[in-house]
C-alpha cells in the first residue's frame, strides 16, 4: 500500500519490531502452557461454546492441554481464517471445527492430517449416521471426525396442515414441494425457505436437485474437470419448485433476502402460519417463547419431495473436527479429536445446545429423549441418515458461488433456462474462463 502520509522508515521499523515481539509472545503462549505441557489449539465456531470449553477440559490429558480459540461467526470468515493459517503451514493449528463442505477443500489442499487405521475406523464406524460419515471422507480417506450433525425438516402448524388437508401426506413423508406450496397459497399461508444469495440457498437448491435423483456436479475428484450435471431433468425439476414458489402468493415478501432467521416470525404471526424448511434449532427457538397452546400446534415432517415418488434428500450440515497437517503433535491431536467427538460429547452438545448427534446410539440416550419429543428425534435421525450432502470438491466454493449467482434472485429462475445457464457458468468458472 502507498504511504502518502510519508511516515518515516523509523516508524516502519518500530512497527515491524512491535509486530515481531507480538508474534514471538504469541508463539510462546501457544506452544506451552505454564507447566511446560504442550497445548493443542482447537479452533471452534461459536455454536455451543460453553459445552465445547468443558469438552476441551475433559479431553485434556497428562500429556497435553486443549485450548479453545474462537473463530468468527460467519462460515466464510471461519474458512478464510483457517485457510490463511493453514496456507502458511501454521503448526499451532492442531484441531479445528470444520463445516462439512470445507473438508474436501482443505483435505485436497493438504491442510488436514489423515485419520489412519484404527482412528479412521473409529470415527466413521457403523454407529455414525451415513450423512455425516460421508462428509468427512475425501478420495477414499478419512480426514475428520463428525462431531454433530444438522438437518432440515419441514416445520409447520398442525392446524394449518389439517385445514389444507395435507396433514397425512406430511406425516407419511410423501408430501411434495408443489403440494406444500399449493396448500399454503390456498389457505393464505406462506412457505419459508432460505433464498438470499448465500450458502443456505445453495443448500436448498442442492437438496431439491438431489431430491429429484440428480446432482449439481459429480466426479468431483477430477477437480476443475468435474462433471456438471445440473442441466438435467433433476435440475429442471428443482428450478420448477423455486419458480413455483417465487410466482405463488405463498412466497414471503422478503424471499430474495430470506435467511434462517427471517421467516421464523411468520409461524405465529397474523394468519394461519407457515410451512418452513429450516434447521433443527427451530424447536428450541419456539419452545418457551410462544404460548404452550401455540407450541403444541407446532408440527414437523420430513423435508418435502422434489418430485412425486422419489424420496427427499434433506440437507445435512453440522461440524466435523479436523486435525491440522502441520500440527507439532498430530497423534495427540487425532486422539483429542476422537475424544471431543465421542458419544458423551455428542450427548452434551445435543442436550445443552440442541446440536444433534452424528451417532445413532446417542439418540437412544435417556437424557436426550427427555429433552426432545421422541418423534422429532426419530425424524432428525432419519433425515440425517437419508440426507444428501453438498458436492465434495476442492472447488466447492466456486461451484456454490456459481450456482448462487445464476439462481438468484429466485423470481428469475426458469426451468428452461436457469439449469442450462448455471451449468455453463459452473464450467466456465471451474476452467478459469469466467470471473465469480
Amino acid at each position, binding site marked *: 500500500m*502507498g504511504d*502518502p502520509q510519508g511516515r*518515516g522508515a523509523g516508524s516502519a521499523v518500530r512497527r515491524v519490531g512491535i509486530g515481531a515481539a507480538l508474534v514471538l509472545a504469541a508463539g510462546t503462549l501457544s506452544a506451552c502452557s505454564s507447566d511446560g505441557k504442550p497445548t493443542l489449539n482447537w479452533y471452534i465456531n461459536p455454536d455451543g461454546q460453553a459445552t465445547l470449553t468443558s469438552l476441551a477440559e475433559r479431553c485434556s490429558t497428562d500429556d497435553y492441554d486443549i485450548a479453545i480459540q474462537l473463530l468468527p461467526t460467519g462460515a466464510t470468515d471461519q474458512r478464510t481464517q483457517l*485457510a490463511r493459517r493453514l496456507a502458511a503451514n501454521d503448526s499451532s493449528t492442531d484441531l479445528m471445527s470444520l463445516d462439512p463442505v470445507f473438508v474436501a*477443500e482443505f483435505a485436497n*489442499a493438504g491442510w488436514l492430517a489423515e485419520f489412519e487405521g484404527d482412528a479412521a475406523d473409529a470415527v466413521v464406524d457403523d454407529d455414525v449416521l451415513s450423512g455425516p460419515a460421508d462428509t468427512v471422507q475425501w478420495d477414499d480417506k478419512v480426514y475428520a471426525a463428525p462431531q454433530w450433525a444438522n438437518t432440515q425438516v419441514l416445520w409447520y402448524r398442525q392446524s394449518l396442515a389439517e385445514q389444507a388437508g395435507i396433514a397425512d401426506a406430511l406425516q407419511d413423508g410423501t408430501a411434495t414441494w408443489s403440494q406444500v406450496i399449493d396448500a399454503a397459497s390456498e389457505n393464505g399461508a406462506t412457505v419459508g425457505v432460505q433464498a438470499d444469495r448465500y450458502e443456505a440457498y445453495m443448500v436448498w437448491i442442492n437438496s431439491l436437485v438431489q431430491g429429484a435423483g440428480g446432482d449439481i456436479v459429480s466426479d468431483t475428484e477430477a477437480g476443475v474437470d468435474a462433471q456438471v450435471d445440473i442441466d438435467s431433468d433433476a435440475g429442471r425439476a428443482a428450478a420448477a419448485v423455486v419458480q413455483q414458489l417465487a410466482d405463488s402468493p405463498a412466497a414471503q415478501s422478503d424471499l430474495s433476502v430470506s435467511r434462517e432467521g427471517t421467516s421464523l416470525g411468520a409461524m405465529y404471526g397474523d394468519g394461519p402460519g407457515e410451512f418452513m424448511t429450516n434447521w433443527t434449532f427451530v424447536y428450541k427457538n419456539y419452545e418457551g417463547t410462544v404460548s404452550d397452546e401455540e407450541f403444541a400446534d407446532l408440527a414437523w415432517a420430513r423435508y418435502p419431495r422434489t418430485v412425486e415418488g422419489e424420496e427427499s434428500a434433506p440437507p445435512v450440515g453440522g461440524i466435523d473436527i479436523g486435525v491440522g497437517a502441520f500440527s507439532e503433535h498430530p497423534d495427540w491431536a487425532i486422539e483429542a479429536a476422537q475424544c471431543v467427538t465421542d458419544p458423551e460429547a455428542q450427548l452434551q452438545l445435543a442436550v445443552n445446545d440442541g446440536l444433534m448427534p452424528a451417532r445413532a446410539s446417542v439418540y437412544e440416550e435417556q437424557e436426550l429423549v427427555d429433552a426432545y419429543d421422541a418423534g422429532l428425534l426419530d425424524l432428525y435421525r432419519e433425515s440425517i441418515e437419508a440426507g444428501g450432502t453438498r458436492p465434495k470438491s*476442492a472447488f466447492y*466454493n466456486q461451484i456454490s458461488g456459481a450456482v448462487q449467482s445464476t439462481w438468484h434472485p429466485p423470481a428469475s429462475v426458469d426451468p428452461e433456462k436457469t439449469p442450462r445457464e448455471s451449468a455453463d457458468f459452473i464450467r466456465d468458472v471451474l476452467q478459469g474462463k*469466467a470471473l*465469480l
Partner: protein
Amino acid sequence: MSATTTAPAGVAKTPKSKNASDRSVAENRLGMKLVAPALVVMLFVTAFPMLQALWLSLSNYALTAPDDRSFVGAQNYVTALSDPLFWRTMLVTVGIMVVTVFFELVIGFVFALVMHRVIFARGIIRTSILIPYGVITVVSGFAWQFAFSSTNGFVNAWVPFIEDNFNWFGEQFPALFAICVSEIWKTTPFMSLLLLAGLAQVSEDMIEAAKVDGATWWQRMWKVILPNMRAAIMVAILFRALDAFRIFDNIFVMTGGAVNTESVSFLTYRQVIEQFQIGMGSALSVLLFLSVLVIAFGIVKLFRVDLAAARQEG
C-alpha cells in the same frame, strides 16, 4: 514507497553534472553506500512480491488444489478483460474515484483556506479539521454504516424527502453514495493538508501586487493563487486518486460488495482470499497496478507539472 523512489533519484542525479569535484564524487559514493541497504530491503519487500505476483498471474493455481497448478500464459488476463464483471467493478471504482476526489478537492480547498487565514484559535481549528483523518477507515466505515442504517441511523431522520425506512444499502446508487460520504469525510482533511502546504507557498508579494492592481478576490484566486498552487493541487489529486482507486475498507465494512458496489480491489480480494484463486487474483492485482500507473501518468500529463518541481527540487 515514495521515500525510496526519491532517495536514489536524488543521488543519481548529481554525478551527471560535469564539473563535479572530488569531494562531491566522494559524497555521492558515500550516499550510495548509505542508501544501498535500504534499496536492497525495498527490492526484497516490494520488487520480489511484485515479480512473484506477475509470475503467479500466468498460472491457473488454486490453493485448494496445489497439484493441479498449470501454466496458462495470458489466459487469466484474457478472462478478466473479457468478463463483464471486471468492467462493472472498474466502472464502479472509477466512479468512486472521480466523485470522491472532486468533492474532497473542493471541500479540502475551503478547509485549507480556513486553516490558512484563520487568526484566532489556530491550533484548535486546524486540529479539529484533521480529526477525521486520524480515524481508522474501518471505524469510519462502521460509523457511517450505522448513520445510514434504516433501523438505528440518523441520516433518514435528518435528511428531508427520505423515508424513515429507506434502506441505503439495498440498491447500488444509494449504497455507493453512503460509501462515498464515508470516504470523503475521512480523507478530505488529508487533501486540505496538502493544499494548505501549497497555499503557504504562494508568495504574499504577488497577492499584494494583484491587490494593488485592483484585482478582486475572485480574480486573485483564479489568476494568482490557483496557478501558483498547481503543483500542490496535482500532488493532492494524484495521491488521493491513487488511494481512492484502490478503495477497499469502506466497501468491505459497509456493503461487503453486495448490490454491485464491488471495486477492483474487492474483486481481487474475493478471488484470492475467499476463492483461493491465486492465479486469477494475481492477474487482477497486476491489472490494478497497471491501472494505477495509467492514472498517475494521466494526472501528471494533464497538469503538465514537472515532478521534480513539485518536490521543490527544481
